[in-house]
């Protein structure tokens, strides 16, 4: 019998369990069965991947960038969700504030999510700097509600939005998934409006170490990409994981985060 690949994932929500049980059940019917291990945070998961305890890690974009940094680029990205290739950060303010660009934030208060959230903290600061706004130009309110999970829970982004509602901040930087979750401003009319959206960047990806040969990983990737949104047995898993198709990763989409991590002096671990 084929030894199952061991896949790591971070337990950011109770729904992670049914997602990965569903994935395990799906792969049990393929030539490349899997089992999974859940970690409490991405630092622990990346350590496990590099140590050889895992065959694959379902990594956030920051966990991927840190894996690359710690392996001198030897690790490999195998596949992402379709939604991971078009991830964006959205800057929002109370409706009617008249903000029109990042420049509008000069001298104002911006609420950021957890410091290890690429979408709600690291990349927003990167975009501010690209726009010529330094640390003294915008008052940053950091809300570290879910450090370790790279913003997966969305909690720190909701807290950032609360800060805007409660007038503790003038604007908030959040991920497109949270913006979609609150209805892009349409479900809460008069509450929020977006005034700047970042270019697309890549988010999560399955990461493997070089010890997992392409001879072994290619069939697994082929089986992953064969999951079909139109198949009623596959669809619930894909809905829970937030995708309609598994796709090859887009490595160019990590360039902005790689640059941001370097600029901001973030450590390669944890």
């Amino acid at each position: 019998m084929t030894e199952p690949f061991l896949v790591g994932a971070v337990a950011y929500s109770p729904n992670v369990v049914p997602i990965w049980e569903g994935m395990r059940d799906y792969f049990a019917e393929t030539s490349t069965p899997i089992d999974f291990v859940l970690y409490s945070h991405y630092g622990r998961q990346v350590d496990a991947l590099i140590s050889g305890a895992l065959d694959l890690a379902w990594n956030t974009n920051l966990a991927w960038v840190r894996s690359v940094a710690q392996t001198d680029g030897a690790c490999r990205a195998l596949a992402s969700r379709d939604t991971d290739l078009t991830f964006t950060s959205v800057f929002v303010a109370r409706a009617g504030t008249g903000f029109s660009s990042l420049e509008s934030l000069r001298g104002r208060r911006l609420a950021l999510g957890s410091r290890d959230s690429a979408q709600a903290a690291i990349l927003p600061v990167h975009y501010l700097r690209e726009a010529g706004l330094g640390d003294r130009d915008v008052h940053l309110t950091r809300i570290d509600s879910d450090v370790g999970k790279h913003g997966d829970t969305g909690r720190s982004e909701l807290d950032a939005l609360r800060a805007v509602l409660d007038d503790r901040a003038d604007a908030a930087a959040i991920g497109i998934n949270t913006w979609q979750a609150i209805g892009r401003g349409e479900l809460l009319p008069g509450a929020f409006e977006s005034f700047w959206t970042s270019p697309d960047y890549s988010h999560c990806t399955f990461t493997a170490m070089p010890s997992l040969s392409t001879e072994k990983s290619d069939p697994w990737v082929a089986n992953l990409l064969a999951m079909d949104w139109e198949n009623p047995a596959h669809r619930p898993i894909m809905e829970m994981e937030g995708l309609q198709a598994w796709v090859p990763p887009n490595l160019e989409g990590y360039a902005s985060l790689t640059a941001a991590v370097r600029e901001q002096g973030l450590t390669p671990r944890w």
Partner: protein
Amino acid sequence: MVIGGPVAQRATSASSAYGVVLDLIEGLGRVPKGGTTTVDLPGAGHDRGLELVGAWCASNGHEIVSVDGPSVTVRHGRSPDPFAGLDPRQRPGFRVWVYTNFDCNLACDYCCVRSSPKAERRAIGADRLHQIAREAAEADVHELILTGGEPFLLNDIDELANSCTAHLPTTLLTNGMLFRGGRLERLRRMDASRLTLQVSVDSATADIHDSHRGTGSWAKAIAGIRVAHEEGFRVKVAATLPADHKHELEPFHEFLDTLGIARDDQVIRALAHRGVAESGIELTVESLIPEVTITADGVYWHPVAADHADQFVTRDIFPLADAIAEVTRRFVAHRRAADQVAGWFPCA
């Protein structure tokens, strides 16, 4: 405080109606699909907050479970479709049963509604049946089924049947023993193109049938089937058998074949422990997919218990669509309760 679901969580309150939605997103993120979270609506913006929660749930595929004063409880995801896996013909209201009367020329020892020559008639009456038929057609009912008692004891059974077939295909349940004289004439006045007769026959020979239904009843029923065929009616046969009579099924089917009863029209049903039956399977509203059933006394869950208070639904027959909706509502509630029990006791 917390209502139902495998896991429930109470989120912290926020200061505004908008904040309730943020509380809700956070709360639902902490419970698995199927679980619930409860959030507090702001005192000043209660209605606005509830409106936003409703809109957000509708847009994101979640479901409000209850509103209890200042709190609203929301399920992560929607409840499983209670009709999933059901044949569309099993949906409540696909067909509607009507007890035309409860008196009978027989006194079967397993009758689920205690019919007999001594039973009170409790006739549905022409006016009500006509209204039932008309409203059933408007309520997307596909078939009416008339039963009793013995419907052919009614002197206006031809008019009753015709008032139904004028609107919907109809099946009339009978013991088939009375097709002679004036009753045969009434049969002939029915619309054979829209009416199916379902005759009760319990065995391929007279002994078992007669032991339950009375001496000579089998021969008359078989004769009645032949008369019905001669008059151009489609005839179904329904047998009521205890579980230990299963070994007799194939010879029974072969016998019915000789009578010209199509295999799909040979209905075998298990004896129910209802009415005057001393044994049989236990049927409760929790275990029984409903078949909307109308009697002179009101609406019942299923024809097998149309004389039992535990399956009484409502005295209000009309509007019929409301009666069907009430049965459906109760069915959905039972299904969801069963799902919740399964969630609470996953190891049982």
